[in-house]
Structure formats: C-alpha cells, structure tokens
C-alpha cells in the first residue's frame, strides 16, 4: 500500500534554536497519528511544516496526490501546494478564530470553502452548509449567525465543519480540544471520532492531552526538545512506554 504521507528526515530551525529535527514516518490512508509532548517540544513546528505553513530546512514531505502519486510538497510550486491545502488537506487550529472568519456567518464560513474549490450553485452550497452544521451538532437556525456569537465549543465544531466540507483526505489538528471545558471536550472528541471513522480520514493530531490520543489516535509519536523519542501503537506506548520521558509523561497523569 502507498503511504498517504511520507515524511523523511524533516528539520526546522529558528535561527540556532531547534524547532524539530530528524523526523521521519509514513502515514497510511485511514490512519490517525497523535503527536504528544510537553509545551515547546516542537509539535506545532512539525505540524506546520508538514502542512506547508513553514518551510523545512531539510527533508522531504511526500503526499500521495490524486493525479501524480507521491510528490514532495516542499519543492512543489506555491500554487500547487495551495491547491492541495484546499482540496486534500484540512487544518484545524487550536483557536477557532485562527481558522474561522469571525465576521462572516456560520453558513458563509462553511460555504466559502466550497466556493474555493469551485462550487457556484447557491442552493447546493447552502444545502451542504446546512447538512454540515447538523453533522457538527449546530442547530440549523444558527446558520446566519456569526461565530463571534458562538460558545468556544460551537466555534470549534464550526471550524471542523468548515474544514471537512470539501472532503479532505488528510486533516492536521493542533490541540483541537485545548482551552475547552472537559464536558465540551468530550463532545468534540466523540464527534471527531465519528467523523474520522465515517469519512475514512487520515489525521495527525497534536496535543499534550494523553486522554485525547487514547481516544482518537491509532499511533503515537512522542516528542521532546524537537526530537522524536518514541513511536508505536497508541495503547502500547501509553501502557508500556520505553523511553524515560514517555514514562514520566504517562505517570504524571492520574488516569488516561
């Protein structure tokens, strides 16, 4: 089977400071990978590098494109990369305001993504937006409201709808449940679990919350100081951690 994403020896520095380095892995279709590690360990740097928001200092990020198979997204042209990020990738930010347009209606936020990939028929776009608001448990009568009137959990669900409406194949998520109340997190996680399964999505989820990866991720990658210290099947890494740092992470939470 061809990997959907093939990451080879990626490194990103900020001047002399390591963002992340020596990262390699293959992600297969339908796989969900979690990236964990404490604050400053390089998770967001890695995710943004994979998603084409940052240019790595070395290494390759090959994506299995629909037209031409594996292509290095680091060296492809900017318009090509932008097209991929509209059609095949999605990026869910920790702060909904970074992923939403706050002065556009909820329906508009979802519809805009469809228009960006060529949808033109108003009725279809509206119907699709309504359908997606329903799927993320936002009442239809809120379609014309702006996200600024929504709660944090609702904003995050709207961001997910906006991202998934175009049927991406790979979803990047940076702390998607960060900053939400525990009960709101549970609802969001449950929703994400269902969507990932239903749509057969591949996803890379960055979080510092081990309960989140236990629920969502098939595989885990543990980062420390910009390096990957351990990888493996999620339950194996959490229940039988090999690296001292992972053992520390696992033991410092009461129940995962």
């Amino acid at each position, binding site marked *: 089977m061809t990997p959907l994403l093939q990451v080879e020896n990626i490194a990103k520095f900020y001047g002399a400071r390591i963002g992340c380095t020596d990262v390699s892995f293959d992600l*297969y279709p339908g*796989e969900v990978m979690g990236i964990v590690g404490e604050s400053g360990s390089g998770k967001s740097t890695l995710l943004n590098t994979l998603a084409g928001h940052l240019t790595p200092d070395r290494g390759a990020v090959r994506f299995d494109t629909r037209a031409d198979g594996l292509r290095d997204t680091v060296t492809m042209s900017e318009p090509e990369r932008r097209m991929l990020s509209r059609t095949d990738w999605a990026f869910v930010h920790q702060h909904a305001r970074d992923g939403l347009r706050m002065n556009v209606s909820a329906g508009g936020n979802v519809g805009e993504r469809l228009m960006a990939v060529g949808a033109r028929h108003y009725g279809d776009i509206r119907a699709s937006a309504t359908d997606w608001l329903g799927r993320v448990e936002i009442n239809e009568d809120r379609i014309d409201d702006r996200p600024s009137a929504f709660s944090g959990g609702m904003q995050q669900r709207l961001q997910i709808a906006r991202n998934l409406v175009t049927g991406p194949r790979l979803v990047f998520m940076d702390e998607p449940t960060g900053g939400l109340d525990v009960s709101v997190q*549970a*609802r969001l*996680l*449950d929703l994400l*679990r269902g969507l990932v*399964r239903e749509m057969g999505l591949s996803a890379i989820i960055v979080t510092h919350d081990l309960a989140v990866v*236990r*629920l969502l991720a*098939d*595989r885990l990658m543990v980062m420390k100081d910009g390096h990957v210290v351990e990888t*493996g*099947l*999620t*339950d*194996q890494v959490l*229940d*039988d951690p*090999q*690296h*001292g740092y992972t*053992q*520390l992470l696992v*033991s410092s939470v009461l129940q995962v």
Partner: protein
Amino acid sequence: MIRVEHVSKSFTLHNQGAAVIPVMRGGELTVARGECVALTGASGAGKSTLMRMIYGNYLTASGRVMVGDLDVAQAAPREILELRRHVLGYVSQFLRVVPRVATLDVVAEPLRAVGSNEAEARARAGELLAQLNIPERLWQLSPTTFSGGEQQRVNIARGFAHPYPVLLLDEPTASLDATNRATVLALIEDAKARGTAILGIFHDEAARDQICDREVDVTRFTPGLAA
C-alpha cells in the same frame, strides 16, 4: 492460531534509577483452533503480561508471537490494528469507557469496525446485553456510571460481539454472580465449538476445569523462579 516462541520481557523504570525488572524468559505457548488454554501461576507471575504481549499492548523484547500469520512482536501498528479488528479479540479486566458513547454502541462497535451493517450490529449487541442481564433501559446510557459488575458484563458483550477466531480473556468471570457466570461460560463454550482459539486467565478454578483443555503455568517463564 497462537504460537509464542521463546519470548522474553523486562520493564526498565527509567525514573526509578533505571531499575530493570525481568518478568519473562523463555516463554512458550500454543493454542490451536477450538482449544481453550488457561494461564496459571501466582499473582505477579506474568499471566496478564504474556496476554498483553500477544495483544500487542506490551512490547516483546525477543522471541516470536505468532497470531495466525502475523508476528505481533515485529508487526507495524497498522498490521496489529488490522489483526485486532478481524482476528484477535481481548476482554481485559476493566472496561475502558469512552465518554458519551451509549452502551449499545460500545458493544456494537467491533461489528461496525468490520463493516457489518448498522441494524445487524445493533441487533447482535442487544442480544448479548440481554443475555448478560443488562436492563434495556440502560442501553442508551454511557456505561461510565455503571457498577463494576455491569461494566464488566458490557466489556464481555463487546468482546463476544464479533466472532473473532482468537480470543484472549483476562479473568472474565471475576465478580460475576452465578447466573451471569454461567452465561459467560456458555458464551466461551459456544466460541470454542465454532473453532475459536481461546487463551484465558481464570482465578475461578471450577470455571477453568469446566472449559479449559490445558493449563500453562507461567511460573516456568518467570526469571529467577524457573527450575
């Protein structure tokens, strides 16, 4: 269906002076189709550890852990997940509950994962929950708030929903009343009869005698204890 060859395992506690605790050496085991094998040995001898190694939940340091054609000791995460979806079931000692998911869905999930249609999956889940005396009024609730005994029965129902060819059972009858215990033993007998290879840990000696064909004492593989 299960063939464990010369496995070893130790735990290194890096944050406790890098203490190395050897827990298994020279582990050997086979379980054939339609056979039920019991793991025995005192508490702490390594029964659950060996079972978790077979499930891929604990890493195996050396040796082979064949389940069907796959060496779990060497397999990639996605190969193990595929094996777990179709071939290898595991009823752990405790149910790990997912918040907000209804009991009926918790039990139906393994069937959905292999592509059963929704109606069939739910019907089978309901059938098992009824057999295990989980009142129907609880089926739409999350098992989070259930009693320990109820959670264990939900866990068993989930483990038996899909007819896995290989099944691992870690103390499935612990803390069950006589009626539910009999139901679980009947489920195990049925699985055996249709050819399932079963590896179990049973404190309940009578249960072990009733359903197991052989015993393997893991004390033989406990470093420092082996003769």
